[in-house]
Structure formats: structure tokens, C-alpha cells
């Protein structure tokens, strides 16, 4: 009976393994090369190892001739089956959601920035890694780091033949070392400001790759605070018929050890993120706590109390001189420091929390000092803030996406986020004043977020462009014939290259990013295709009738897709879609423009911009209407020069306040025209008359 039982359980293992493999095969089809395929290979390796290990023990059972050995092997096969079934369940439960996330990975904007952050924070380490971003419904962030996960798991499995195990481990070592899953609240997907808090999860990744936690434990010998640990033991030993004293001691030690490890990881991540990002992370994290409704004095099994964490962070900002140098946020930070201090003092821990808190507190100075040494290379001190942020701030305040700095290079993501947070935290009223009164506070914040997202994307493209075409210098980019004469400011006159460059360089006219100066031609500026498109969902679309169209249902017929820079989108003959310019454009009060197709594309059959006029004072990325009039599909590559912007002198207008600033293509606003209401009513009246007429004639 026992043998049958063991064999039956083995069959359950085989069956479960088979069903799991079917699912893994399905994911294989969906995964792209750089997001998840190595993770899947690792998962497969673990499943293979479970199966190999199990079948090895079944062979051992068949070969066991001594009855007592056979009985022991039967027992082992049964235990192995139970463990194998749980392992397979764990793969279902923990790994399949991650694979699903990897298979549905969007070209999310933060991804390249985060990848670059990993490179910057781990210089000299040639570590192959996969990063998967995962939106989640819970209002929380998360980090799951897997370091040589397949190797580690396979090592744990007992093989009856050791050579088989060694071969399997060798195969696993060929896979990327790090697989990281960073999750963020889906609710904040559109908010660059809020998503700044993701820096904490990235800091976990840096801790993980750099094994900073382990270095700290090596450098700083920790010993649980004896007074609080003894008090904890006394409390636990209270019941007469409970476990033995040694068991209680072992339990308490293990719980405190786990808690200390978890809290230390959090402190490390907080310090790394604060030092790398400066006030932007601190403010974003504080804002996140408010949004999450967190209790400042409440610790949990994985995190110290928020007030205590904020106290550590403000300490780091102070170390970076943010509380000394006047850079715009100093007074605000000083004020916050006072509030946090009073809240941190109120935090009282008990039990294991108290042991761990006191243990860490005793070595706090040494832990922080070691962390400062580790993070020195990528710290963002107040002096850098003071030199980089004001320029970015100026552009944001003017409603311009701060992609480029004054020398034509990309603004750093850190400077952009800090400037945005400075506006959001202390200068928001002034910023709001620049927008039309009918825009709500939330809509103005949305505009700020869009400007930031655009700047982050533009900056990344600018950097990528620099890497791809470093030889594309000013000299080679110069046009053939340059005239030195300045065109007098005649109304209606087209701006030529010299005048365009003067206006661009002075900041009066904004067209950014200019990937190379050859874009500025004799009488126009070439504009490039952006990364966002709106396509029609033909199966959903019966007709577009402005009479029945509403802002809500237009989005049912059209959807937004993102095509990454370096990737392409195929536009088939007769197809139509909306694109946008890669450049963020801001026209002054005395300039208007037209968008025209470039002849190269025009001759290939691509028509762009059917609505071509750009008003004086206009801000944002232009929506392009793209249609393939040719007979063969046309590949649309973001970054390609598809059109040209011709600019003319106009009568100076009194600039109105800013409205919604688009940084991607806009859905049709046909239905929002107030005149349609009149037409609708007219039609309704006509219809009523007609139906009344029919009724009368019947009578």
C-alpha cells in the first residue's frame, strides 16, 4: 500500500509538471528577447531539475534490493513527491504572474531610465540583468529580486546521481545573473511626480546587485540589544505549558533575525534612493505615505515606522547640505524636519520591533557612514542641485518641456524630477497661475506630469542619439549655403536658417530636442516622428459621425500605442493614424507656422499633417495625421524626419494663459465643437417635424 501511495504521488508530480510545461510553452511565444526570456529559461531549468531529481529517485527505488533500504527509499520518494508538488505549486503561484507581467511588458517610459540607473549605480560590473516593470492594483510598490535564481534553486534539489546535478547547475550558470521585477501602483502610471518613489525599489535592486546588505553586515558587527531581547524572552516564557526555553529562544532569535534583515534592507534602500535622487525622492516618498494613508508611527514585519525612515532620509539630505545651502527647498525641508522629529519621538516599539530598533539604533552611525561611502559616487548633493535645477525649473515654469539644457545636452532625469517636485511642493500656486482659469488643479498637475514625462523621454532619445551618431558634428551638419544677412522682421516673412537659429538659441522659439543642427534648414525646421500613435480600432468602428460622437466614445474607437525609439510601426496602404512630433514646440507671441510633408516621404506615398496651421503662442507636441496613399506598406520609425515646420512672422498677440499641453497625439475633439449642439437640435427638430408630418398624413 505504501509503495502504491508513493507511486501514485509520483504520478501526480508528473501530471502537474506536464500541465505547468504547457503553460510555460504558451509564454515562450509571447516573451521578447530582453524582457523575460531568460527568466522563462530559468523557470524551465527548475522544472526540469524537479523532474530529473524525482525520476532519479524512482530509478533508485527500482534498483533497491535490500528491503530496509527499499522501505527508506519509498519514504523518501513520498517526501520528495510532497516537496516536488509544493515546489511546482510555488512556481505556479509566484513565477507565473511574473512571466505574465514580462509577456505584457509595455514600452514604458521609465524602463530605459531605470536601466541606466542600474548601470550608473553599479559601475564596472558587467552583470547581465533583466528588468520587468509590473503595474499593480494595490496602492503599493514592490521589488522582487532573483539573483542566479535557477542555480540557487537547482542546488537545493537532491539528485541520486551527483554528476547529473552538476551538469544542470552548469547550464543554469549561463543564464543572466539578475532578474528583477519592480512593481508600482497602476493608479500612478500617468504621474511622473508620484512615480519618483519607484527610486526606492531601484535602490533595492542596487543593494541586491551590489550585495550592500552583506557588506554592511561584514563591516558592522551587530548584536541584538540584550536588555530588550531578554525582556522579549521573559514575556514569551510566560505560559507554563508552552515550548521549552530553548525553543522560545530559538524562535525569538529567528524572528528578530528576519526582522532585522528586512529593516536593514529598507534602510539601505532609503539611503541609496535619497542620496541618488535628492529631495525629489524624499518628497515623493512622503507624498506616497500620505496617499497610502500610512500611520507614521506604525512599523511592520518588513519596514520600520515611516516616521523613523523619514528621519533617516532627512538626515541624509542634511549630510548632502540640503538644509544649509539655499537652493529653493531649504526652508521647506527644515520645516518638514521639525515635524518628522516630533513624530519619530512618539514612535514606540514593543517585542521584536523594539529589539531590532534598539539594535540598529546602537549602530546607526556606523551603518550610515558605511552606506555613504558606498553611495558617494552617485550622490546628488545640494551644490549640483543648485547648478542644474534652476535652468530646468525656468523651462517648466514657462510651460516648456525641459528636454535640453542650455548647451544642447539632455537635462538629467534627476534634475528634471527635482525641479518638478520643487514646483509641486512649494511653487505650485505660481505655476497654476500660468494656466487658464477653467483648468482644475488636477488638470494643471497633469500638465506638469506630461511636461516631465516628455522631458524624460526626449532626454533619453537625445542620449541614445549621441551614442548612435557621435560623429554627427556641427561641421558636417552645416547646410551648403549660409547667408549672413538678417531678415528684417516683416510680417508674413518666412524665417530662414539664421533667424531660426537665433530664435532657438535665445530661447524665444522652442523646438526641442534638436537631435542635430542640420534639422534647421534654409527656411524650415525638419520635424521628427514621435513615439506615440493613435490607431483606429476598425472592428469597433462603424462610422465617425460628429452627430453621435462623444469624447468618451471616440476613445472606444481609437487606441494609443507606443512604439519605442529604434523600433518601427508599419502603415499599410490606405491606412490612417495619428502620430505626433518628437519635438516639443513652443511658439512665441509673434510667430505662426505650417507643417508640411517632406518630399522624400511624400514621394513614397506618405501624407502627413492635413491640418497644418500652428497658432502663435502654441505649446506642445503637434499631432500629425498620417496616411499611406501609396501601394506598399511604409515603415514609420520614431525619430525619422517626416515633416517640416515653416515659421512666419505674425502680428504679436497677447499671449493667453496656457491650456492643456499635449505631448502626444490627441484624440479627435470633433464632438467638442459647441456648434454641433445647434446642428443636432436642428436635425432633431427636422426629424420631429418629419415624424409629425407622417403621423398627420396617416390620420
Amino acid at each position: 500500500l505504501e509503495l502504491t501511495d508513493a507511486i501514485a504521488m509520483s504520478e501526480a508530480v508528473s501530471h502537474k509538471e506536464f500541465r505547468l510545461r504547457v503553460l510555460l510553452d504558451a509564454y515562450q511565444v509571447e516573451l521578447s528577447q530582453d524582457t523575460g526570456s531568460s527568466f522563462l529559461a530559468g523557470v524551465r531549468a527548475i522544472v526540469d531539475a524537479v523532474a530529473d531529481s524525482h525520476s532519479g529517485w524512482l530509478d533508485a527505488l527500482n534498483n533497491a534490493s535490500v528491503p530496509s533500504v527499499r522501505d527508506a527509499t519509498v519514504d523518501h520518494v513520498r517526501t520528495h513527491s510532497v516537496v516536488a508538488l509544493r515546489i511546482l505549486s510555488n512556481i505556479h503561484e509566484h513565477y507565473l504572474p511574473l512571466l505574465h507581467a514580462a509577456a505584457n511588458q509595455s514600452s514604458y517610459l521609465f524602463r530605459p531610465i531605470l536601466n541606466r540607473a542600474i548601470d550608473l549605480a553599479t559601475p564596472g560590473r558587467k552583470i547581465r540583468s533583466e528588468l520587468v516593470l509590473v503595474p499593480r492594483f494595490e496602492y503599493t510598490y514592490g521589488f522582487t529580486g532573483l539573483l542566479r535564481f535557477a542555480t540557487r534553486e537547482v542546488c537545493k534539489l537532491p539528485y541520486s546521481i551527483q554528476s547529473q546535478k552538476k551538469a544542470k547547475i552548469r547550464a543554469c550558470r549561463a543564464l543572466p545573473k539578475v532578474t528583477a521585477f519592480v512593481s508600482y501602483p497602476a493608479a500612478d502610471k500617468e504621474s511622473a511626480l508620484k512615480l519618483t518613489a519607484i527610486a526606492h525599489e531601484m535602490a533595492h535592486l542596487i543593494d541586491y546587485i551590489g550585495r550592500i546588505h552583506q557588506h554592511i553586515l561584514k563591516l558592522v558587527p551587530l548584536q541584538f540589544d540584550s536588555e530588550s531581547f531578554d525582556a522579549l524572552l521573559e514575556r514569551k516564557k510566560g505560559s507554563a505549558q508552552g515550548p521549552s526555553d530553548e525553543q522560545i529562544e530559538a524562535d525569538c532569535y529567528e524572528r528578530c533575525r528576519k526582522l532585522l534583515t528586512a529593516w536593514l534592507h529598507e534602510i539601505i534602500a532609503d539611503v541609496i534612493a535619497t542620496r541618488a535622487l535628492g529631495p525629489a525622492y524624499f518628497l515623493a516618498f512622503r507624498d506616497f505615505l500620505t496617499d497610502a494613508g500610512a500611520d507614521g508611527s506604525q512599523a511592520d514585519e518588513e519596514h520600520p515606522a515611516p516616521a523613523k525612515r523619514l528621519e533617516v532620509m532627512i538626515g541624509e539630505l542634511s549630510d548632502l547640505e540640503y538644509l544649509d545651502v539655499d537652493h529653493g527647498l531649504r526652508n521647506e525641508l527644515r520645516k518638514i524636519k521639525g515635524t518628522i522629529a516630533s513624530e519619530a519621538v512618539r514612535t514606540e516599539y514593543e517585542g521584536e520591533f523594539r529589539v531590532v530598533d534598539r539594535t540598529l539604533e546602537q549602530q546607526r552611525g556606523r551603518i550610515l557612514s558605511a552606506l555613504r561611502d558606498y553611495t558617494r559616487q552617485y550622490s546628488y548633493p545640494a551644490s549640483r542641485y543648485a547648478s542644474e535645477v534652476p535652468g530646468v525649473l525656468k523651462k517648466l515654469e514657462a510651460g516648456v518641456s525641459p528636454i535640453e539644457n542650455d548647451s544642447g545636452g539632455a537635462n538629467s532625469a534627476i534634475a528634471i524630477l527635482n525641479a518638478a517636485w520643487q514646483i509641486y511642493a512649494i511653487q505650485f500656486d505660481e505655476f497654476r497661475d500660468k494656466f487658464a482659469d477653467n483648468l482644475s488643479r488636477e488638470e494643471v498637475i497633469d500638465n506638469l506630469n506630461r511636461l516631465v514625462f516628455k522631458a524624460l523621454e526626449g532626454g533619453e532619445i537625445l542620449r541614445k542619439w549621441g551614442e548612435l551618431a557621435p560623429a554627427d558634428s556641427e561641421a558636417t551638419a552645416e547646410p551648403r549655403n549660409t547667408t549672413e544677412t538678417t531678415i528684417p522682421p516683416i510680417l508674413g516673412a518666412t524665417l530662414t536658417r539664421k533667424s531660426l537659429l537665433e530664435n532657438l538659441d535665445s530661447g524665444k522659439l522652442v523646438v526641442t530636442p534638436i537631435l542635430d543642427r542640420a534639422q534647421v534648414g534654409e527656411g524650415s525646421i525638419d520635424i521628427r516622428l514621435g513615439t506615440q500613435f493613435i490607431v483606429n480600432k476598425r472592428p469597433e468602428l462603424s462610422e465617425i459621425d460628429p452627430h453621435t460622437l462623444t469624447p468618451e466614445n471616440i476613445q472606444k474607437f481609437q487606441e494609443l500605442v507606443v512604439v519605442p525609439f529604434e523600433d518601427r510601426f508599419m502603415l499599410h496602404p490606405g491606412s490612417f493614424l495619428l502620430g505626433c512630433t518628437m519635438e516639443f514646440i513652443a511658439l512665441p507671441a509673434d510667430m505662426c507656422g505650417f507643417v508640411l510633408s517632406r518630399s522624400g516621404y511624400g514621394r513614397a506615398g506618405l501624407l502627413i499633417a492635413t491640418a497644418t496651421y500652428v497658432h502663435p503662442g502654441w505649446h506642445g507636441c503637434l499631432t500629425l495625421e498620417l496616411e499611406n496613399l501609396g501601394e506598399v506598406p511604409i515603415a514609420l520609425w520614431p525619430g525619422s524626419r517626416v515633416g517640416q515646420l515653416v515659421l512666419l512672422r505674425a502680428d504679436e498677440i497677447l499671449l493667453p494663459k496656457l491650456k492643456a499641453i499635449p505631448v502626444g497625439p490627441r484624440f479627435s475633439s470633433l464632438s467638442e465643437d459647441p456648434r454641433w449642439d445647434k446642428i443636432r437640435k436642428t436635425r432633431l427638430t427636422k426629424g420631429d417635424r418629419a415624424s409629425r408630418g407622417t403621423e398627420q398624413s396617416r390620420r
Partner: protein
Amino acid sequence: LGNSKVVRITENELWRFQMITTREIIPDSLQNALLASRVLVGIEELKSGTPTENSKSAITDAVRFLKLVLDAHQRVKTRQVSLGALEGSLAYRETIRAIDRLPDLQSRYEATLQVIQGLAHIAQQAQTAGGTNPAINQLQEFFTMVRDTSLSEDRRPIESLSMPK
């Protein structure tokens, strides 16, 4: 950027991404259960005079396990937290639980530390002398309990229920 696919995450799909809290697929407790189970096969092979590749490596692992537990014992008593503590403290806890449930084994020694030291000594002897030492039964008794204790550590609900009160 840097992606070769045009993909969009729809709100409908988001539910699938919830509850991502994975750490290890083979937690320490299951690993200890497998080790103990394999040691038991190895001991039986030694006792029957038919040692195999497995019995040698299993007894070596048993010695390593008990040494890890001895190190952990030292750290628990001195309250030290070091890199080694990450590995051994769960094994130590499971060992203490197993010993607590084996009164016969406990009665042969004066204190828990001596039980662990005694077991480590028996395992080391088995490495050289095979299964001839009758004390090897203590090792068998101990690892049977470690296996069962470790398996019971990794409990999981078989159903989740969510409904209004």
C-alpha cells in the same frame, strides 16, 4: 524604449499582476525536509552494508547541517547577527523543535548543545565507519523528526474564501 514589441497593458489585465511577493521556490524548510529524507535513505544504505554515492554525500550533508546548527547555537546564545546567521538560524530552530519532541534522545544527554554535538559526532563516525555504530539509530530518529517538523513548517491553505460577513 529598448523594447522590440508594441504592447499595451490594459486595465483588464492588471488583476493578474496582483500579489507579487515571491521569494524562493524551494524555501529552507522544504530544503531541510529533503535533506533529512535523503539522509535517512543514506543511513539505511550504510546500515545494510550497501553504501552508494548517495549515502556518502548524504552523510557529508548531515555533518554539514549539524555544524551549521552548532554555529547557529553559538550565535543565538551570544545574540550575534552576522552573515552566517542568515543561513543557520532556521535550521537551528527546526533542530530544537525536533529535539524537544524526542524525549528519549534528550534523556541520553545533559543539554541540547550536547545532543547536537553528540549527533554531529555520530554522523562524523558514520562517514568513516559506515553504519556499524548502533548509535546511528539516534541520527535516524533525529532526522526523521527534522523531516516531519520541516514539512509541517511549510503549510499552505488549500482554499481561499472571500465573502461578506
